């Protein structure tokens, strides 16, 4: 008896690791699909929907097409490209004995854009064509002012109720989750029961607003820290300049041949620039006062929250070309300032659902900011060129992360190359730092005090 029990226990312990076939029910009947532990043969499962599955050996990726939809994924990866959009998978796709396998949750994520869902249990899953129930695809995006949760695939405006650590959304018409909710940013997770979607929030996070959007239809929740947010400043009598000393804390930035640290040079130049601006009567604030680690989004968020007039990020450059030298000034590229980004930023900056007029107004302001950023960058570069010891490397546009969320004219200046031994030594000298600071302050002050018409976009360098 004891021997039989041990035997049974042993078999039970190893059973999940033995290859087996599970029966998957489909609208046409049922099919056997290879399975081991919690993994299933994805290619076979996907083909049961009528999709074409191809493996491109040269690219190392699988391509699944069904109708107008296309899904690509690769063994060893946890990302898929779904109809041109990068989508995280709940688990990695693997190769096992010549088969491409993944968990049932991964399979469900790949099936969803093809219009299929996976129901039932892990032992007896059922492939079902998506019917009348809307397929909710929940994702979260961290922005400069907090996390935005986007619920795609619904035209409904659910009843929203905010609790201490969760938000519930009650849908009037049937809904299903297209894929399990993955914890992301400040969204800790979530479940759907009887058309009620419960979203769990990270500690200290609460609902700041919700609204429905069209084209494509989706419902959006804005999350914010529950801790009292510093109130918006009362309207200022004058302009405010935000100077951003690049890097800081654990992020040392570039290093010179004598171990000169970019984070130290940017702070010294920013402090000196602030002193010059304050002498000229302009209110100035730094994104970091000392050797601190500050995220890129927090830097821009500070400028947005304080409704700054100008944002200038100060950096020192490095290049594999050791002879490279000179200053460069950048502003946001038009490519990174497309209408989608503008709309996303408009939503971020709107307390509630932005209407069309708000979006148009914001878009106009964004274009004006781009033109003004070009003017600011020209002014800065012109003065740095005037310093005899710097060589013009020009003004360029590039998709700088720290400039992405700025809602005011913004530029990023590289004051010189730390990778160039001569320039590194020069950048370390207090008098050089002060010369650069004076040039930056002069350019910023001139920009603020001389609001001349912005140059046409055609005059700006194109990406």
């Amino acid at each position, binding site marked *: 008896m*004891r*021997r039989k029990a*041990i*035997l049974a226990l*042993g*078999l039970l312990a*190893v059973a999940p690791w*033995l*290859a087996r076939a599970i029966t998957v029910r489909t609208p046409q009947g049922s099919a056997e699909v290879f399975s081991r532990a919690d993994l299933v*043969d994805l*290619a076979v499962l996907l083909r049961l929907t009528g999709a074409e*599955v*191809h*493996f*491109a*050996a*040269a*690219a*190392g*990726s699988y391509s699944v097409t069904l109708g107008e939809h*296309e899904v690509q994924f*690769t063994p*060893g*990866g*946890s*990302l898929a*490209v779904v109809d*041109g959009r*990068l989508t995280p998978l709940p688990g*990695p796709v693997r*190769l096992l*004995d*010549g*088969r*491409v396998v993944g968990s049932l949750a991964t399979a469900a994520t790949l099936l969803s854009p093809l219009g299929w869902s996976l129901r039932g249990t892990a032992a007896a899953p059922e492939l079902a064509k998506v019917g009348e129930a809307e397929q909710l695809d929940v994702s979260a995006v961290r922005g400069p002012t907090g996390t935005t949760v986007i619920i795609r695939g619904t035209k409904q405006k659910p009843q929203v109720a905010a609790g201490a650590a969760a938000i519930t959304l009650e849908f009037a018409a049937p809904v299903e989750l297209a894929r399990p909710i993955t914890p992301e940013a400040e969204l800790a997770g979530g479940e759907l029961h009887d058309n009620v979607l419960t979203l769990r929030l990270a500690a200290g996070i609460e609902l700041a607003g919700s609204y429905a959007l069209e084209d494509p239809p989706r419902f959006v929740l804005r999350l914010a820290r529950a801790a009292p947010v510093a109130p918006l400043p009362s309207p200022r009598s004058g302009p405010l300049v935000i100077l951003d000393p690049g*890097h800081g804390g654990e992020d040392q*930035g*570039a*290093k010179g041949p004598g171990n000169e640290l*970019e984070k130290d040079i940017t702070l010294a130049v920013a402090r000196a620039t602030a002193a010059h601006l304050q002498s000229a009567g302009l209110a100035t604030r730094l994104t970091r006062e000392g050797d601190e680690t500050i995220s890129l989004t927090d830097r821009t968020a500070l400028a947005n929250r304080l409704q700054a007039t100008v944002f200038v990020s100060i*950096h*020192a450059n*490095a*290049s*594999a*070309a050791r*002879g*490279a030298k000179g200053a*460069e000034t*950048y502003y946001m590229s038009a*490519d990174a300032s497309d209408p989608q980004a503008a709309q996303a930023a408009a939503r971020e900056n709107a307390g509630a659902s932005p209407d069309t007029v708000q979006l148009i107004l914001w878009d106009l302001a964004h274009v004006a900011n781009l033109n003004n950023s070009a003017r600011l960058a020209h002014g800065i570069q012109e003065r740095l060129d005037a310093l005899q010891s710097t060589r013009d*490397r020009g003004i*360029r546009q*590039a998709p*700088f*992360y720290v400039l992405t969320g700025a809602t005011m004219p913004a530029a990023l200046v*590289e004051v010189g*190359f730390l*990778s160039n031994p001569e320039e590194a030594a020069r950048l370390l000298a207090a008098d050089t730092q002060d010369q650069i600071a004076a040039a930056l302050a002069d350019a910023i002050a001139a920009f603020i005090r001389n609001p001349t018409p912005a140059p046409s976009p055609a005059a700006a360098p194109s*990406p």
Partner: protein
Amino acid sequence: MKAVRAFLAVLLVVAGVTAVVLLARRRQPGPEAAMTPGPTAPTPVPGHVVLFFPGDDALLHREAREVPELPTSNAARVRLVMEELVAGSREGYAAALPWAAAVGAVFVDREGNAYVDLSPPPPDAIEGTDTELAVAYATTNSVVLNCPGVERLQLLFGGQQVATLGHLDFSRPLAPKLDLVAP
């Protein structure tokens, strides 16, 4: 003693079942084995590609080179271009990717976006805006120039979408940037 015998019996059963499963699997190759192209590949068609590498002036410089085979599929061609970039310049330019990068998955979607997964750079491998610009645009310019139908490139690192390597926004596909190319 009885317990030891019972344990040995379990081991024997497990070993037996495992052997049967392994043998069965060998006899029945998976469907993907059948999908993978066999050894009878078409005759390679030689071609040439134009790559971009950072020069002494920190601008990107063109470098043309012959390749023994120019694939017709875009995903394979993207991989080829990326592997040639990783191999480095033959004309003395600096490395486009300043670490021993390995090219992983390659995707090309219907919107003209290519996605390339690279092994992530070690800390301190990418210092300064110009180094990061070279990583972003040596790859993007090279891929877009050589792969018809590809308009943008997004680099992934270690199978993950990465917001930034310190300066630039890598969270979405980038269009080529020709003002970084030396005249």
